[in-house]
């Protein structure tokens, strides 16, 4: 198996290099493969224009409201041996600014705030009828605010290579998270092919609460993520993308307040492995439609060391009608349960156990629709836009989420 793959890779590199060499031969200004190649004389030398030291390219603000309802066995907000309420609402304002610093550096900063109700249901209150308002482990968790700031700095190393750095900080009661990462993109063959690689490290630091709400110091979770991707222009109207992502997680991989129902009518803590290795392969096709539209198709395969395997497919169509753009989309997701999922456990039993409905086997569907209005402003090509989106997401194991989202933005 190794030899054909190696041979195909070598042949691919030859095919990538060959067009680049051809581009150089016809007078392309730069080739990463033949930097010393003589350039054809330029009869019309370019006018040099210096980029401004700092310029804002775009500003966007968005507000999204999620409304979730359903039942899950990890929640004690219901009968002792039955599933409890997963009722929650999330209000999420977001903002984004993209700016250029000189002619090589692009900075993108996003800030988001999540206001979550019922972030951590109180397991002292199990036995209440379904529909009872969910209490929380700690006072602030009744209405929990999570804030996050993300920064992406992209530096144009040369005409074909971009180097970037990512940093983020996330704060919510009772969790803090720090993230750092780097990414690299390189385009080949007159920008027909772009290869991308990225590496991220996240560290989560959070309070360990038991089911009665008693705090037992701090716990740590580490997430290391490596990604490879390729973007290819297939035709003047078709783009394809492929990607692979590997994520290794270690530490306390539960939120510590999830519970499992015991066969004697009581509840115990969720116990999960301290390591999780996750693989995801994805492919995407974007096709221009001749009636001012675009079609997007995607597929992802996922497998992890906890035994969960998932297939996800999505499709979306966009249609422009003058300054108005309409979008509709659908998503299908099917996943198998992790190896240690169950809805009732032996109180004397040892080993891993979870009743978390998110780790169960289920099929999820989503349907979405959106509209966007682009309005030119002034004579310099500036635009403002208004957008609205709605989505209905539902799972076969009794959970559904509706969200509505509105945005306003300006861009050069």
């Amino acid at each position, binding site marked *: 198996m190794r030899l054909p*793959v190696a041979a195909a890779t070598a042949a*691919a590199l*030859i*095919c*990538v290099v*060959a*067009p680049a060499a051809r581009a150089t031969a016809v007078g392309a200004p730069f080739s990463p493969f033949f930097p010393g190649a003589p350039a054809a004389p330029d009869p019309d030398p370019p006018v040099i224009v210096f980029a401004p030291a700092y310029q804002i390219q775009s500003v*966007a603000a*968005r507000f999204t409201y999620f409304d979730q309802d359903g039942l899950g066995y990890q929640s004690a907000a219901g009968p002792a041996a039955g599933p409890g309420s997963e009722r929650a609402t999330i209000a999420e304002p977001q903002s*984004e600014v993209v700016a250029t610093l000189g002619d090589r550096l692009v900075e993108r900063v*996003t800030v988001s705030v999540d206001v979550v109700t019922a972030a*951590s249901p109180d397991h002292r209150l199990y036995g209440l009828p379904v529909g009872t308002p969910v209490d929380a482990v700690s006072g602030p968790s009744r209405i929990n605010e999570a804030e996050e700031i993300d920064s992406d700095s992209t530096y144009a190393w040369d005409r074909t290579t971009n180097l970037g750095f990512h940093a983020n900080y*996330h704060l*919510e009661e009772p969790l803090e*998270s720090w993230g750092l990462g780097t990414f690299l993109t390189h385009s080949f*063959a*007159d920008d*027909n092919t772009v290869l991308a690689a990225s590496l991220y490290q*996240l560290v*989560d630091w*959070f309070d360990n609460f038991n089911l009665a709400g008693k705090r037992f110091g701090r716990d740590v979770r580490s*997430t290391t*993520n490596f990604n490879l991707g*390729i973007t*290819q*222009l*297939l035709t*003047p109207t078709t*783009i394809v*993308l492929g*990607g692979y*992502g590997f*994520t290794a*997680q270690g530490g306390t991989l539960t*939120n510590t307040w999830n519970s499992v129902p015991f066969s004697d009518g009581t509840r115990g803590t969720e116990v999960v492995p301290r390591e*999780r290795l*996750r693989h*995801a392969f994805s492919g*995407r096709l*974007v096709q*221009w439609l001749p009636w001012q539209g*675009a079609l997007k198709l995607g597929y*992802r*395969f*996922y*497998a*992890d060391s906890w035994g*969960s395997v*998932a297939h996800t497919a999505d499709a*979306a169509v*966009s249609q*422009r009608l003058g300054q108005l753009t309409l*979008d509709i989309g659908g998503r299908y997701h099917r*996943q198998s349960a*992790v190896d240690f999922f169950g809805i009732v456990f032996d109180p004397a039993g040892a080993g891993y156990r979870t009743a978390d409905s998110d780790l169960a086997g289920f099929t999820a569907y989503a349907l979405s629709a959106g509209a966007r209005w682009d309005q030119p402003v002034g004579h310099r090509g500036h635009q403002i836009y208004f*957008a609205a989106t709605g*989505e209905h997401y539902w799972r076969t194991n009794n959970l559904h*989420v509706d*969200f509505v989202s509105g*945005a306003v933005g300006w861009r050069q």
Partner: protein
Amino acid sequence: MRRRLPRVLLAALAAALLWSGCAMVPQNRRKHLGDPMMSPDGDALLTAGRRKLYTSRESAGGGDAAPAGGGCGCQ
């Protein structure tokens, strides 16, 4: 089946690379490819919100140049 799958996907990736190296779309024929509707990810903020919903409500994530978990109180 599980052991064979990564090899098949690796071969598919190599084939995609082979395919990619031999296709050329000249710069002056990329008008439609630069249209905002052709952006694979669409609106960045909306995509981030959707990703948060899916990764917190499903066991699967990743494959889109983002971590498959971590960074929030969900998992």
